[in-house]
């Protein structure tokens, strides 16, 4: 009797567009890469500062040009998606149990986001002396 092989299909290239949660996951991953890339930009800014006032001013002017400002807003959006989806994932998994039973994930998510905002406000205050 001939052995009939099972049919194996390939995953379509646009699989992540078919489900909003897959799309959000992809945005989270892209946000992670962009976070690392923006860290490199900040390091380069430090290097320009080390090179002297003219190099630093040139870089600052470049950062303030409209296309770069637009790009920065796009990167900021992705980083926000990354941060929020990360806190959401943390709330869903709760690998470190702080309470006897896992907290409802929405509650845990809200707590982490509030803490994140508080820490951000403290950091802004320390660096810029206010918002």
């Amino acid at each position: 009797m001939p052995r009939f092989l099972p049919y194996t299909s390939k995953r379509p290239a646009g699989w992540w567009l078919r489900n909003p949660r897959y799309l959000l996951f992809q945005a989270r991953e892209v946000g992670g890469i962009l976070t690392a890339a923006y860290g490199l930009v900040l390091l380069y800014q430090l290097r320009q500062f080390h090179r002297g006032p003219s190099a630093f001013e040139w870089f600052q002017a470049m950062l303030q040009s409209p296309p770069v400002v637009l790009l920065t807003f796009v990167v900021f959006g992705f980083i926000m998606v990354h941060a929020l989806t990360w806190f959401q994932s943390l709330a869903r998994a709760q690998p470190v149990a702080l309470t006897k039973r896992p907290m409802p994930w929405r509650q845990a998510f809200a707590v982490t986001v509030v803490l994140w905002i508080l820490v951000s406000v403290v950091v802004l205050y320390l660096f810029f002396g206010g918002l």
Partner: protein
Amino acid sequence: MAEKDVVFRVKRYRPGHDAAPHYQEYRIPYTDDMVVLDGLNYIKDQIDPTLTFRWSCRMGICGSCGASVNGKLRLTCGIFIKEVRGRAVTVDPMPNFPILKDLVVEFDDFLRKLQDVKPYIVRGEEKPLAEGEYLQTPEDVEAYRQQSMCINCMLCYSACPVFAASDHFVGPAASALAYRYIRDSRDEGADERLGILSTKTGIWECTFVGECSVVCPKDVDPAGAIQNLKVLASIRQMRELLVPKWARR
């Protein structure tokens, strides 16, 4: 109850006959109390006996009748025809698995992975029968109750984009069941299981998309179980690195 008509678009594949799967349409009468599985059974009994699909209990316990219904991964016994949105009820076999025939897919790969993670209680040494059973408190049972609900329906594997990209990934259900036994107070196989799971093809491949937990019909939360396994595996690794052998329990 008034009967209405609905069109079922069912993915068909006959091995050795069809080069690729294709849709076949059936118009059937239905009532509001019919689930998608009832519709498939109507087609098989009344219209086309060659249509092949798995089912058994009809009450969401056996986990046999999983499929993609209008793009959503569901147990076909758990969704009413009247709930399905769209002009037709489109039934596809579960994605990410080889199709054997029509809606029947091959699970051999999962069964091998499940065996690897030892989904049973492992004891170093059994106590004598005369000493009685292994007792557990309600808290002990609660520690693994959620993961013990897994019915091996495989919807989580169908939803997992990591498994779709690399089928050597141990996957959600096998990991959740491994976690279930690790959390069992009677079990002594945690170290062995974590050694098996904490590999390149194990839990570290999971990127926490979380869709496995969304589609799970029994709320097992395999994604959460995998993240917890990552923490346990990290602690185990740190203990091996930092604690001398004689000081480990």
